[in-house]
């Protein structure tokens, strides 16, 4: 296949993955290699990096400079935010959310993980499973990333030893048995030398599995979306002010989950009214008669209904016999993202699907030590980068599912009402 071929390009899938790691575990080298080997690094970018490396007196071209974008970061030599990288192979387009792995950047890891289908976890073969491996794995589990690839890196520095690899794998399995992760793969690699990254390594004949690139290209992602529970949060109501479309009233939004078809009986929340889907306007034609037979997540569409019902932004269209939970009392895990600690009994604004509301923190149940994975029942001080289980009460009922079942209707953010900053990322239990 050829990436330039339009038809093939139209059949490419999209895979979003997240990487977390610290400066010396070879993460930047690995990303640099993936970008370089897929020809996603261009000459002018490489030249800029070579120039900077030389000025700084480095012996080698520092591929980390490709990913460390901002001035402050280059000065301090650290990555302080989520950086997005793109590359494509003939099969898939990839979006990498590259995040720093240090504990003080837990919030960035959570941000990067929130949209990922896959987590790439790097382990230094010489060091084995470290605290930060626990941390990354816990976040992948908390954020319900469907697939995990554990790369045991720097195999060249342990003589490509199968024993080291096997030992690290069994150590990791001990850790993952305490987590909620489903699909875990292990690959022995050397990012620096290129072993098992794109090409199969000749140094590890004992390894029969796939290379990293093969796995990234072929891992089964089409069942990651929830196509069972129909949830359509109404984002915008379209009412053209034109005689031609005088009676047109369309409900625009992106399908959170499930499959909708014209003729389906639906229920509107919060009113509870029922109606039938009249038509679904897709987005591939600017033509009112060009409707489609079915729409599914994550499509953006516009629906019309048989009857005139009062619907506005923040309402949700669901199937009559499959409803989300409707409640004002919500239990969740939360990652705190602000320097200002969470206020016990504090009030915050919330955003959930297309709905805005306010909430009060009713109870802080426990904090999680994300290195040891222990629950700290007596520690109720929730500061930046902490993860805790809390209960909130909202001013309006929200329509939600558990985050485990639905990453769109199960996620919520808390906003400081004075500064308007996003301060908390919640996963509904």
């Amino acid at each position, binding site marked *: 296949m050829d990436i*330039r071929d*339009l038809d093939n*390009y*139209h*059949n*490419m899938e*999209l895979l979003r993955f997240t990487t977390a790691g610290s400066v010396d575990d070879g993460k930047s080298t690995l990303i640099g290699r993936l970008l370089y080997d897929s020809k996603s690094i*261009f*000459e*002018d*970018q490489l030249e800029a990096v070579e120039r900077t490396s030389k000025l700084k007196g480095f012996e080698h071209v520092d591929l980390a400079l*490709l*990913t460390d*974008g*901002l*001035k*402050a970061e280059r000065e301090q030599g650290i990555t*302080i*935010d989520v*950086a*997005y990288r*793109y590359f*494509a192979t003939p099969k898939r*387009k990839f*979006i990498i959310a590259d995040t720093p792995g240090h504990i003080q950047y837990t*919030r*960035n890891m*959570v*941000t990067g993980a*929130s949209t990922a289908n896959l987590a790439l976890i790097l382990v230094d073969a010489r060091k084995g499973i470290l605290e930060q491996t626990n941390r990354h794995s816990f976040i992948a589990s908390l954020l319900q990333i469907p697939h995990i690839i554990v790369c045991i890196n720097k195999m060249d520095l342990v003589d490509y030893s199968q024993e080291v690899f096997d030992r690290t794998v069994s150590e990791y399995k001990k850790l993952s048995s305490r987590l909620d992760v489903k699909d875990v793969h292990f690959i022995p690699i050397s990012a620096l030398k290129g072993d098992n990254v794109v090409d199969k390594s000749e140094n590890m004949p004992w390894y029969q599995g796939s290379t990293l690139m093969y796995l990234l290209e072929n891992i089964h992602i*089409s069942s990651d979306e929830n196509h069972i529970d129909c949830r359509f949060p109404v*984002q*915008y109501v*379209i*009412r*053209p*002010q*034109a005689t*031609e*479309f005088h009676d047109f009233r369309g409900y625009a*939004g*992106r399908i959170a989950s499930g*499959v909708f078809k014209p003729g389906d009986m639906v229920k509107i929340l919060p009113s509870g009214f029922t109606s039938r889907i009249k038509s679904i306007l897709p*987005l*591939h034609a600017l033509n009112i008669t060009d409707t489609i037979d079915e729409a599914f997540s*994550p*499509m*953006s569409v516009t629906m019309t209904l048989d009857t005139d019902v009062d619907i506005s932004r923040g309402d949700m269209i669901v199937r009559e016999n499959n409803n989300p939970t409707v409640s004002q009392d919500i239990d969740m895990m939360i990652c705190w*993202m602000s320097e200002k600690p969470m206020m016990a009994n504090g009030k915050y*604004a919330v955003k959930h699907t297309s709905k805005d509301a306010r909430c009060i923190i009713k109870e802080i149940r426990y904090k999680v030590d994300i290195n040891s994975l222990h629950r700290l029942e007596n520690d109720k001080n929730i500061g930046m980068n902490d993860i805790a289980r809390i209960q909130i009460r909202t001013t309006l009922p929200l329509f939600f599912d558990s985050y485990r079942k639905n*990453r*769109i209707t199960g*996620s*919520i*953010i808390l*906003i400081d009402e004075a500064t*308007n*900053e*996003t301060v908390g*990322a919640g996963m509904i239990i």
Partner: protein
Amino acid sequence: MILYNLNHLRILESEAIYVIRETAAQFERPALLFSGGKDSIVMVHLARKAFFPARIPFPLVHIDTGHNFPETITFRDKLVSEIGATLLVGSVQDSIDKGRAVEEKGINASRNMLQTITLLDTIEENKFDACLGGARRDEEKARAKERFFSHRDEFGQWDPKNQRPELWNLMNGKKNIGEHFRVFPLSNWTEMDVWQYIAMEGLELPTIYFAHDRDCVQRDGQILSASDYLSLRPEEKIERMHVRYRTVGDMTCTGAVLSPASTLSDIIHEIAASRTTERGTRTDDKRSETAMEDRKKQGYF
């Protein structure tokens, strides 16, 4: 089991439309920044789809340096009249005449930096609280960390350390008085995605994107178009060349590439084989290593 699969272009399209609708829903006075370049043409197309069959519920805003390619302006006016959109033009010349901006001097003088002043003035005059733009994260390293909803303070400045985390598909557009947002629905698109999408949707583009004969000047490894706005060094000569443009900006700082590509499919093949980024044709980014970051902090696009 039936598989419900969307190809990556449709996923990116759905994501961009979601962000555009979110902007219309969360802000009182949004606007779409329109340069006449391919990214902003894709943006207009997506905005039409987002609200169809209604018209785009916000104006298009063009920051006009006065040094445009004439082809871009012709294209802009035709598009606007076809889709029945409202166009507002913020003129850099006006800013200079009013003394708000001072023309750069010297051989490489460009109005690129001055656009920021005109842009911020236009935003303030019209009280826009969100400006949609076609910038992508793959363009430049300072943009790799840009958000969909990018917060700007009351001076229009971007503070990379003070950006809100963006989780799942929850966009936080809440703001205090005087602050505004830049919104980038194409954040996750690459140059290749944009071209493939243009081909898939059969979008029309200004003619300068396709190979044509043009009077040009070679300067510092760039091919610049000869025009009234470009003063020549004594040793520089005007040559007739067969070129096209990969990006469309101000005539004085946008370089052409030698190319025989005269159709979309030619262009896509050319880009796939290309070894430099499209911003490699922009002298405005080469002024310093952090040229883009510095301009963004001041309030650039």
